[in-house]
Each structure stands twice: as structure tokens, then as C-alpha cells.
């Protein structure tokens, strides 16, 4: 094996018994994986299973405590990100590392500018950029600043950057989390193309269907260990993957519920804001889950923000329990029992640098005030009750919320609104970036909420989730509500997609 030439039989990447500990935690307890050129490896596992630590070891961010990494049979020590890059490893993180104020060409060659006589050679850079983007099948305006590009376009720039630096292994961490179905399909096509060029891909995703459709081999991590390495992907079911990930069998993806739909709570008429939301009309009833489907950018989030008072509507009216309401800002919406679990938990839902209990208390402080002063004991007790009932995993209630996993963060957000006694809950992508086990718990919670007569507006890019959870579904396209599907669970993804894409 040693020093043998890199043929197809020698894995281009081999990680053996990788161990990495952090103070108090053993993040990786001997993880192994291998990957050949032209292959895509699906790397899956629940949050906290060790995927990101493993990728950081590969990217030269963390040096493993023990274990070896071999590239084409040659043992390497990836001591720093730059060494890792020069070995042909490119990592595309969930949060992109593009400089937002530079254009796509500048980002493409950032740090490895093409120069002539010490000056940047724009022409040759532009030419190569064009060739790269063409090969990826995307037209990207080279002069647009990256912050003005769509998520999919930014991702293409990241992939092109990896190609420009002659990467042989490209790691993609949750690449489709913020993409629409159409864009996902395009990305999958690009990945197939990269595979044909002999590039090896490590694909990390919570979306198991995608992993099953593109991966040539799958490695499943759980609690810092490799629990499965499967090369016969076509023989594996989604159910099997889930069982590997959670270490037990899950009977169903979406829990059952017997809806008892009540009277209309929220009635929306002709609500519009610029191009984002145009003439939205719908009713939301008590005890109902109303799903909103549509591509990213179809106006789902914008509609939710209008209902919540986060943005102001140009025209249109909203009535709550028969009474016309107009929310100047979220404070008034919250006072009337409407809450929004934002799509972007980290930027909008939580104050990451503060503790779980402080985040929980923030909208509820009036309740905990006694004679002007806060009763912190009361606040803590109230939160502890939710820690128990929602099964929030925290080391202590004052743990910094930024250190919690996605699912637990979402539960903290939920706890603060439940304490606030909200009865119209708008969930915007409630399970994005959340692992399977925690997803199921959140579905159960949604069912409990509507069973208690509350109303839920469920926005999601995952069509199976919208179908599985909703009583009715609104489909949005380009700011308009394109159609309404009365029997949510009886519909198909195709039916929704055809509405979301075209009339």
C-alpha cells in the first residue's frame, strides 16, 4: 500500500481511527472513512455526532490527537488550513466564506490572483472565471458583488473557487439547506459532473433523499464513532439510515394527529408589500396547521414577517378574532399572542452569546417582575419546567445558547413563546439544520399545540414536511399565493411543485 501509485484501487482519501478530544468532550472516538476519486461520499449523522469535527480535521483546523490521514496512500499531517488546501482539499461550509463586498471574479481568485509584472491580470482572470462558470452550467455576472448574488450563485462561486485551486476533494457541508428544489437539482447535476471529472466529493446533509440519490458510498457517524460504512447505496433505505443515525428504529416520519379545526382566528385580505408579497388572502383557523410551500424567494418568509409586524405592509388588512389589527412592530403582535419562530435562528431568533434562560425570559420579563425587580428564581423555575416538558438538553439553564445543538436551540425559542402564551405560532423552517430525532420531537410539539386549540402556520422548503404536517397548504410563487390545497396530507410533492413552479 505504501507509496503505491494513485490508481483507482487506492483511496484518494483514507482517514483511519481519528480521535480528537476537547476539554471535557471526546468529539471523535476513532472515526474512519475512505473515498475514491470520482466518488461521492454521503456523510451523515445527527448534530453532535462529530461530522463537523471530522471535517475540521480534514480542513486542517483541528489536528487529530491520533489516527492517520492518507491522501492517495501517502500519509499527511494537515496542520493548518493552508496545508490542507495545498493538498487539494476544499471545504465549502454552510456559511459561505466569500467576501461579500467583492465581485465573483475577485472572490474566485482571492489569495491566488493571477498577475503579470506584479499587477493583476484581469483579462486572464475573467477568461478563466467564464470557463469555470460555463463548465458548471451557471451564468454569473462577474461584476456583481457577491452579496448581491443568490445563495445558489454564491455556492457556485464557492465550487468554482475550489476548482480554480485544483481541488481533488471537495467537502460540501449542508449545501442544499438554503436552496430551492430547482436549485438543488442543478447542484446535484453539477456534482455528477464533478464526479465524472474525477473529483471526489464528501457530501454532508440532513436530507437523506439527496444523499441516497447521489452518494456512491455512505458513512454514518453517531456519538463520534463510525456506525456504518455502506458501499451498496441502492440497497439502503431512508428508514435504515435513520435507524443508524439515531441508534433505534423510528416507526414513522411524521406523527399522527386527529385535527379538530376551530373557528377562523386570523383573516388576511389583500396583504401586499412591494414585489415580495402581492395580494395575499387566507384564513387561519384554531387547531389547524396551515402549511406554506414555495421556492426560496417566493415570499413565504416575507408574508410571515408582515403578519408579525416585523415589516410594514403597503396595503391590505389583517383581522384577529374578528378585530382589525395593524402591527407597527413585533411588540404589538406579541402582545396579541402572535409569535414568529424565525427561519434564521442564529441571527434572528436567539441571542447566541446569552444564556438559555435569558433568551427564554426576554419576551416574558413582565411576568417575572416583582416590585420593579426581576425575580430570577421564578424565571429559572419557569424555564426548568420547559426544559423537562420539551426535553431540552442543557448542561445548566445558564448554558450559553450558542453552544446548544440546532434542535435544542429551536426548543429554547419555542419555550419562550409558549411561556408568552402565544396562540398563533408562525414556524419558518422549524427543522432546518436539525437532526432527525429532534425533528420528530418538534413535529410532536406542533401536534400538541394545535391539539390545544392553537394555530400554526408552517413554512418549509421540505415538501414532505409540509405535506406530512399540514391540514391545508398554501403554495406561493413570486409573491403570490398560487393555490390552496384543502386536504394537506392527501396531496403529492408533484402537485405542489407544479403549482410552485408554473401555473
Amino acid at each position, binding site marked *: 500500500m505504501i507509496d503505491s501509485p494513485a490508481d483507482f484501487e487506492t483511496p484518494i482519501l483514507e482517514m483511519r481511527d481519528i480521535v480528537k478530544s476537547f476539554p471535557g468532550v471526546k468529539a471523535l472516538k476513532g472515526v474512519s472513512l475512505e473515498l475514491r476519486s470520482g466518488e461521492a461520499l454521503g456523510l451523515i449523522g445527527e448534530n453532535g455526532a462529530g461530522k463537523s469535527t471530522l471535517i475540521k480535521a480534514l480542513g486542517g483546523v483541528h489536528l487529530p490527537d491520533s489516527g492517520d490521514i492518507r491522501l492517495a496512500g501517502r500519509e499527511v499531517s494537515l496542520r493548518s488550513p493552508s496545508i490542507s488546501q495545498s493538498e487539494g482539499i476544499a471545504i465549502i461550509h454552510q456559511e459561505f466564506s466569500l467576501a461579500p463586498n467583492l465581485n465573483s471574479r475577485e472572490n474566485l481568485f482571492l489569495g491566488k490572483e493571477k498577475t503579470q509584472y506584479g499587477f493583476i491580470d484581469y483579462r486572464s482572470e475573467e477568461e478563466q472565471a467564464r470557463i469555470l462558470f460555463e463548465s458548471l452550467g451557471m451564468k454569473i455576472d462577474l461584476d456583481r458583488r457577491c452579496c448581491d448574488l443568490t445563495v445558489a450563485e454564491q455556492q457556485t462561486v464557492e465550487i468554482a473557487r475550489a476548482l480554480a485551486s485544483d481541488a481533488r476533494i471537495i467537502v460540501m457541508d449542508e449545501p442544499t439547506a438554503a436552496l430551492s428544489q430547482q436549485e438543488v437539482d442543478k447542484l446535484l447535476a453539477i456534482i455528477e459532473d464533478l464526479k465524472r471529472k474525477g473529483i471526489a466529493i464528501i457530501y454532508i446533509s440532513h436530507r437523506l433523499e439527496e444523499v441516497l440519490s447521489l452518494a456512491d458510498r455512505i458513512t454514518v457517524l453517531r456519538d463520534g464513532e463510525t456506525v456504518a460504512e455502506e458501499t451498496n447505496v441502492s440497497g439502503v433505505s431512508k428508514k435504515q439510515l435513520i435507524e443508524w443515525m439515531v441508534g433505534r428504529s423510528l416507526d414513522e416520519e411524521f406523527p399522527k394527529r386527529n385535527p379538530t379545526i376551530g373557528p377562523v382566528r386570523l383573516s388576511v385580505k389583500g396583504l401586499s408589500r412591494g414585489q415580495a408579497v402581492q395580494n395575499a388572502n387566507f384564513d387561519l383557523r384554531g387547531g389547524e396547521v396551515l402549511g406554506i410551500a414555495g421556492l426560496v424567494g417566493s415570499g413565504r418568509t416575507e408574508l410571515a414577517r408582515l403578519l408579525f409586524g416585523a415589516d410594514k405592509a403597503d396595503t391590505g388588512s389583517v383581522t384577529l378574532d374578528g378585530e382589525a389589527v395593524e402591527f407597527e412592530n413585533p411588540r404589538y403582535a406579541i402582545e396579541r399572542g402572535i409569535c414568529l419562530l424565525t427561519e434564521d435562528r442564529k441571527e434572528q*431568533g436567539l441571542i447566541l452569546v446569552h444564556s438559555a434562560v*435569558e433568551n427564554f425570559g*426576554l419576551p416574558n420579563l413582565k411576568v417575572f417582575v416583582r416590585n420593579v425587580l426581576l425575580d430570577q428564581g421564578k424565571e429559572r423555575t419557569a424555564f426548568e419546567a420547559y426544559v423537562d416538558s420539551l426535553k431540552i438538553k442543557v448542561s445548566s439553564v445558564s448554558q450559553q445558547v450558542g453552544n446548544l445543538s440546532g434542535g435544542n436551540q429551536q426548543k429554547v425559542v419555542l419555550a419562550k413563546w409558549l411561556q408568552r402564551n402565544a396562540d398563533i405560532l408562525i414556524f419558518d423552517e422549524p427543522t432546518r439544520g436539525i437532526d432527525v430525532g429532534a425533528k420528530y420531537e418538534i413535529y410532536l410539539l406542533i401536534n400538541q399545540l394545535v391539539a390545544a386549540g392553537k394555530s400554526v402556520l408552517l413554512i418549509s422548503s421540505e415538501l414532505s414536511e409540509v405535506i406530512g404536517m399540514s391540514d391545508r397548504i398554501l403554495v406561493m410563487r413570486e409573491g403570490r399565493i398560487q393555490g390552496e390545497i384543502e386536504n394537506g396530507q392527501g396531496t403529492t410533492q408533484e402537485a405542489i411543485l407544479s403549482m410552485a413552479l408554473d401555473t
Partner: protein
Amino acid sequence: MKIFGITKIRLGDYGMVLALLALCVLFSLLTLKRQSGDGFQAVAELINVIENKLPKEQVVLVVGAVNTDSAALAEAVYAEAREKGFERTRLLVGSPRDLRLVLDELIEEEAFLGGIVTGGDAAKWLVWDQIGQNYPAFAGVRIATPSERLWPDFLKASNLLAIVERIVVIAIIAIGMTLVIITAGIDLSVGSLIALSAVISASVVQILGGPEASGWVVALGFLSGILSCGLIGLMAGGLVSRFKLPAFIVTLGVMMMARGLAFMTTGGFSIDQVPDSFVWLAQGRLAGIPNTVLLLLVIYGAAHVFMTRTRYGRYIYAVGGNAEAARLTGVPVGAVVALVYTVSGLAAGLGGCLQASLVRAAAPNMANMYELYVIAAVVVGGTSLSGGSGKVLGTLIGAFIIAVIQNGMNLLGIQSYTQMFTLGGVIVIAVLLDKARQSGGIRQFLAGN
């Protein structure tokens, strides 16, 4: 892991306190020397001398050097001796020349001098050795001083009070600045607001009576200075919150405008025609405790409770941690931002009154660059400029670290240029240490993680 985490937090929380204590110990050791005692013990010792060792029916002269510790000592001894019925005790607080005049008087009166009681700096006067020569009548007179002891200059009561007086203005303004910085803002205008508040309050006093003005007029003057600055802070905060202007630019503008206003108010001159009550604010005592110390305790106590135990305190942290998330959680972000700049303005206004009261004058060019010392105190106290975290009591420690370093270097006779250099270095090191604490220990920090 839990235990480990908690120990780390503890060390971080008390790190600044330990640093301050270490500095105090260091300067105490460096300024340790044999000196004539002062304080209660010395008073008791001298009273004992008057009671038991000196002839009761004769004059006892209690001597202190003006403007030194020995004056306070002499006054205390005199007061207690009179209380105990030694009516022939006489007090002299002054210079060696004053002593000779008094001795001349005594000779004229043909009084019997039973003894002289003194201490501190006055005990070092050269005249004592020459009394026998110059005043043969008093040749054998007993001169009593408290016994010498080993005591650091740094820990003398007068020096500790000097530290408080030196830092009280900065420390009080730093409360407002802490609030502003916790919301991820900055207030550069506080230095100019000190001057503006000082000249406004002094002008009001001057117009309504000058040196003969009553205590009420002085109170009115101070109040108008404080409220004007609060109003300016409110306007700056309004600009920042309503129009989303960068706080740095807004307060930079206010800084220049306020300084200009201060000069315009007095026409460029300073005002020193003020009554004695004007000085009481910063130099007086209530129930024997200096007002400055009382003010620090009361205001810091109130600010601490406000930040940790009230709704708006929590909101201030939330706005700094993530303004958008706070808004979407129902926090009145605009009101919170306006509030912190108003508090900062009010604190600067009070600081201005104190400063004017300390120096018994108000000048439009006073407190130049104070905003930087204030920011330094906040940062050394562990508040992060990126917002969302910080403690008011940390700021108090930070202010005292700066004051103690300055005071200690003064006592050691270090040049002011060297002092400036050292202080700058301390600020940088404090921020480095704080960063290291956040990244979980010096080693991880140096490793660049």
C-alpha cells in the same frame, strides 16, 4: 466538564479583582517606609500623652502642618482634648512661621507651655531643634509625637481618598459608557459634556449670585448642568436609534458641538467666582464619609441592581447581543438605545459638576480626552466593545485599576511620560487577557483558536 467550566468562569470573573489587589499589594510594598503614625491610633496615643504625661494646668499646643495629614491629626487631637475638658489646649495648623508667631504670643502672655503635641509632616519641621536656642523659656518643653511605625504611603487614608477623588469623575461617567458599550455603541461626547455641564452649572451660579449664591442656587446650577447633558444624550441616542446613524459619528459630532457650546457659554474664560457650597459636592462629607465615596457607592449600587435585576437592564444586554433578534422578541430596541445615551449624558453631566466642584472652577477646556480614559476604564473592566456582555462592577474595578496605577507611579516619582506609556500598555494587556479568557484559556488563545 461542568466543574471545569465553572472554575474557568470564576477565574475570569474575579481576574480583574485579583489584578487590582495585586497592584495594591505591589504599590504598598514599594512605598513602605518608617513614618510617624497617623489615624485613630496616633490620636489615641497623643491624647494619652496630654491626659497623663503633661501638666494639666498648663498650655498644650497641638501643631499640624497645613494641607497635610498632620493637620487632620492635629484637628482630631485638639477636638478630643477639648471634649475631655483640657481647655488650655491650643490648636495651630500652619507653617513653621506660624509656630514662631504663636510661641512669641505665648511669651508675651507669659503663659506656661506644658508641652507640644504634633505628628506627621509637622514633626519633621526643623524649628523643633532650635526651640531651646530661640526661646530659652521653653527650653525644656516636651515635644510629643506618635511612635513611628512601618507603613506604606500608598495605604495612608489621605492617599486612598486622593485615589477616589482622582477617579470619581471617570468612574461615574464610565457607568453610562458601560451601558452604551453593552449595546454595542460608543459615546465619544462625554469628555466635552463634562466641560459643558461644568460651565453651565457655574454660569447659573454666577448669574444668580456668584460667590454669595445660596446652596439652593448651587443645587439648581448642578441640576441644570446634569439635565442639559442628559438632553443632549437623549438627542444623540435618538439620532442613533431612529435614523440608524453610526454612534461613532453622531457622538463625534456631539463631542465637537458640546465643546464649542462650552466655549460659547463662557466666551472662552473660566469661571471661579463660586460660593463654598459649590465645593461641598465633591469635597464635603456626609456623616464623616467623603461625598465622593458615598456617590460612588450609591450610584454603582443602583446601576448594578438596574443592570442585573430590572427589565430594562436585561433589554440593554439583549440589544447589544443581537438587536434584530431582540426586536423580533418584542424588545423596544429604539427606546433602549435612546435610554443608554441619555444615561451616558446624565452621567457625564454629573461628572462635570463633580469635576468643577473638585477644582472649584469651570473651564471650557477642562476634561480634554476624558472620553478615552472612560472607555479605557470600561474595557479594562471586562466589557467587550462588540456588545452584549459586560458588568457595571467590572467597570468600577477597571476605573480603580487605572487610578491605582497612576497613583502608584506618582508615589514612586515616575515621570508622567513613562506613566502615559505604562497606562497605554496596561489597557492593551487587559484587552488581550480578556480575549484569552473568552477563548477559554491562555494556551488556546496563543494557539490561535
